[in-house]
């Protein structure tokens, strides 16, 4: 009898062990994968489909891409020539580009509005902010330390970019046209200018063979229509990791810090 009972319990125990082992294995696998993901850096969260759906839903708009920025709520369609947009319900939030953005170009420019975060001491990742208002978070060193990546979807594909410069260029510099206009020397010139003007030094190399993306918006930190705010990134290269990397403040950041101090400390929401 015991042998039968034994025979009967033996299969149950094994099953349980196998089940538990499988579950644990699965969990461990998931956990490992997650850990691996975390240790392997930023992962693309595709917006290809969302972009298509958005276009179908808003067939009066011309959607040319999609943009996400790490650490912010910036997760918006990029429209062509945002000037002439007619709102359907008035609550559309969007970014825009000028030109022919139907694929990733040598240099890509995306613009967005900043109406609510114009002060000299911008808020960081305020949930009430929309459009490019949270982009000003990159004016703060602590935020920059933790967030480095820009995901850009265009031409049915998602691309990842690494931030290498944060600048406050003169407002008279026009927003630039997208398209296949640019050559290596144009890219090189932009890289040199961006690195020179950047208020942070990022531990990432960039050269004229890289594709760049510039995110541009307004600030009133230096007065009305005096400066813009830009975050510039270069495309992640094949096989390159997307983990976080170092960033330090440089001498130019002192001015930003001073400006922030001048801002109203009671800058309450």
């Amino acid at each position: 009898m015991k042998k039968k009972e034994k025979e009967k319990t033996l299969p149950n125990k094994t099953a349980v062990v196998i089940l538990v082992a499988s579950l644990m294995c699965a969990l461990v696998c998931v956990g490992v994968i997650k850990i691996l993901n975390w240790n392997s850096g930023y992962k693309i969260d595709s917006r290809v489909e969302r972009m298509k759906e958005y276009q179908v839903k808003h067939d009066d708009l011309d959607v040319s891409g999609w943009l996400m920025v790490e650490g912010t709520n910036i997760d918006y369609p990029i429209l062509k020539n945002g000037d002439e947009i007619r709102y359907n319900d008035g609550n559309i939030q969007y970014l825009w580009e000028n030109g022919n953005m139907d694929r990733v170009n040598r240099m890509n420019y995306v613009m967005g509005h900043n109406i609510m975060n114009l002060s000299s001491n911008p808020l960081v990742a305020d949930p009430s902010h929309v459009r490019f208002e949270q982009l000003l978070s990159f004016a703060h060193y602590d935020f920059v330390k933790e967030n480095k990546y820009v995901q850009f979807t265009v031409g049915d594909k998602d691309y990842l970019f690494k931030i290498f410069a944060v600048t406050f260029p003169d407002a008279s510099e026009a927003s630039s046209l997208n398209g296949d206009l640019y050559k290596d020397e144009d890219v090189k010139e932009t890289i040199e200018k961006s690195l020179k003007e950047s208020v942070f030094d990022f531990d990432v190399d960039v050269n004229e063979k890289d594709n760049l993306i510039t995110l541009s918006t307004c600030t009133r930190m230096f007065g009305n229509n005096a400066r813009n705010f830009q975050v510039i990134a270069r495309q992640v290269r094949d096989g390159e990791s997307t983990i976080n990397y170092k960033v330090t403040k440089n001498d130019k950041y002192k001015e930003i810090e001073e400006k922030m101090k001048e801002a109203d400390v009671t800058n309450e929401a």
Partner: protein
Amino acid sequence: MKHNKKFSFVALLLAIVLLSPYATKAKEYKDCITDGSANDINKHYVMAYRYSDDKSGKVTLTVANGTFRVLKVEEGIYNQENDVKTNFQAYPSVLNVKTPLNEIEGKELTSKKPLSFYVNDYAGEDGRTIRVTIELKKKDGKCLSREDYEELPANQKENSTPYTGYIYVELLNYTATSPKNVDNTNYNKGPCYVLRTGDNSSKSISDEYFAMYRAEGTEYYKKVAGYCYSPSVQYNYTDSQVKSMVNTALHSYYILNLASYQQPVSQDFEKAFNASVANAKKQYEVKGNKTIRVDETLSCDYKKIKSFKDELTEYQYVNKTSFYAKEVTTSSVTYKYNYEGGFTQTEEVKNVCTRTCEEALDVEYGPPQATIAGFCIEYQVKVTSRVKCKSEVNVQPPTPKEICQPVPYCIHSNGFENTQGGPNDEYDACIKSCDGGKYTQKCSKSCYNKVYGQTGKKGVANTASAIIGRLANTSGKGYTRSPEGVISWQGGGYAQWYWDHEYERTLRDDRGAFGFDSNGFKRKYAGTKNECNGICSHIGCSNYTYLNEETVASDYAENIQRYNTAIQQCQAAATCTSKTGVFKISAEYENGKGKQVLEFPLSTKKEALKSLTGEGQVQNGLNQHTTILDYNGCYKDTNENNWYMTEWSFPGIWINNKTGEISFKEITDLGWHNIKNKFCLPLDSKNVNVNWYNWYIAQKTLSQEQKDKSGSYKGDDYSSICTNYNNLDKFDDSFAPDVYNIKAQTYDKLDDETGFGYFGWKINIQCFYALSDGSDRKTSSPDKCETPPSGYTIRTVVNDDLFPSDKKDGDSTVTDVDKSATGRVQGFNWSAAAEITADKNEYYANNPELIIGKIQANGNKIYNGKDHLDYEFYLTPSDLKKIKNNKGNYTDWLGKVTKDNYDQESKVYVYKSPLFRGNTTSSNSIADSAKKLGVLGCNNYETCKNKKN
């Protein structure tokens, strides 16, 4: 075991499920797989083209995916409906493609292997397009390729077609970087060619202007006449505009490089001018003004008398007074600007150049005259002036104005400020008033709600920022401005100055989605999406700006001409004056009827010289009786435009041959003769200026020895004249004239119309003559002082009534015996008692009454011609000397006859004077001066029996 297997399977499935997010999906391919979104296929293949930047017309076709083959290349136009090009109409006979078609058609096109060809530069505005049809050649899993198609069964082929796409290449004017230029039609000919090369063999530039050409002035010429240096221009000037521009360039460079410009004069002129100025500054200096008037009268110096040399024939000017005047004028120029829309401006530029003219004037006039009644005097005046003008240019010629380029400015119906991603001005203003511009969160929210509302729908103005640059394919000029100042673009196509880098403002038209309205503003094609329906206008140019090159060019050409005119007016050498010189001279005398003044010319005819025409133009003509002796300079020839001269005098008089009667008006009777340029005092003229007269005679008559003597004589006034001769310059004013009875002037009225020379000088001169009959002279005189003759009486008769009655008709006291052919009883020699009848002496008959009758019948006609003239002498001063020195050679009254051949039997004694009839070589003979001598030994007869043989 089965349970274990089941469980394993479940666990495995579970694992798979949990890991499934990381699994990949398997892909399925179909013909032209599309997700249903708009432009899906286009976005996949991205069939596009681009022009190269080198303006060569190279077009490169590209695709993002797939391998295509070019099927066809055509040219035509298409309609655009939304994003879809439809109804392409090809022009079969036209193809603006430079590359041979066999190098394009049939060629492959892939993402890695773009295809290039060349097109012509096309300036038309009809939207011509090259349509390139490409066919998907190789399988790509997206659409049906040619390879796919070939593998289809025959029945499927009928309903299938390989995928073809179109690339529409817009034909452009890709070489234009500015509004279309045209060939400069004046570049290689005419004045422009001469200006650039210095070769005037074609005589396109006048000699006068070409003489001012300077090779080193090229850079300056380019500034003034830059048009001439461009083979391709935006606007062609007319021939006259080109000529004006080039002449101005030459002239102004020449003038600007002279420190000052002065009309060249000869050394003699300069010397004379300087001498006059020096003389003037000693006497008078008049600071220049346009109206020159000499208020004071010039008086001849009574101590300056003429030389006494007998041989002197030329008139002596012993008085000279000089004047000097200077005038400085500046010229200005007014430029005019005629802007589009009828708006105008003027600009006055003062002191373009400065002109200084000087005139130095010499007035020469004669000495006083001494005369006696019945004698004539002469008096002359001569005025000469020299003019020098110089000028300096102070202002350079104008340069063409820039045109203003209006900027397209649109106010859109909605949207934020999209150029930089910020809020609009209204929001900024709200923040400013809320927290002073700090953009606190509190104020940001409140202002956002206020300005944009909850839905963020409120519109803002959209501003056009800095202009990046002109676009390559603008179609040309054509801005207009309405009278209300509204600027419109009429040139067709896109207006100029569209911003380069913003899609909504650029000319880039890759997808054919954009177009322009009638005012040149960029609008998207009408459709349901994305219309540019904002209010647009051209801003940035005030009403007083030029919009087009053509308008600038036209005004510039005219303003250049205005400048040149101002310069020429300033630069002009002294021109002959427009004033009229009027020349008068007068004399006065006093007789029993009172003071008589004779102003010449006597008639109402004005004797004047007009210099403007360059001819001595006396009204009613200069004639032989004019006062004007000579004239020159401007009065004769306008080429002699820097000097003037006039000399004038009395016109002359007519004197009766017998009686010496004077007429100041012309008498044509033969018994009168004319003495030119003299004024003769009538016989009844009274003495005047006697003190001076006596002093003058003393100068004339005393010997030098006597003049040198001093203090030897005492006595009356006359002797004191002799005594003090050598101290003439110390004579007091008692010898000054009482009356200035000769006057001359150069003007008619005290206005600007008449006067002498460049500045119209009004010159007054007074001088005098002195007349004395000697009656007031002392008769006694010292031995060594000579006295003039005195104590003679002159009496004249009237030929037609030789012995007029001193009683009236009907006077009974006159008897018939007393009367004869005469009115009164004549004296013995003229009476019948003196008749020598033939029986008394046939050789010397004489009948006085017959002679009286003959004389009275002829009257003054006796003096006509020389029929009744017996003796005529023209006595020279030397003749008078001989007469004076003749001490004898004739018999006394009782008649020692002369030798020769006369018959004493006639009892007629003939006396022959060797003075009149002697040997002409004799120093005592004046026979040469005898024009006619009467028949010797006869009286009033043509033949004479008294002459033997």
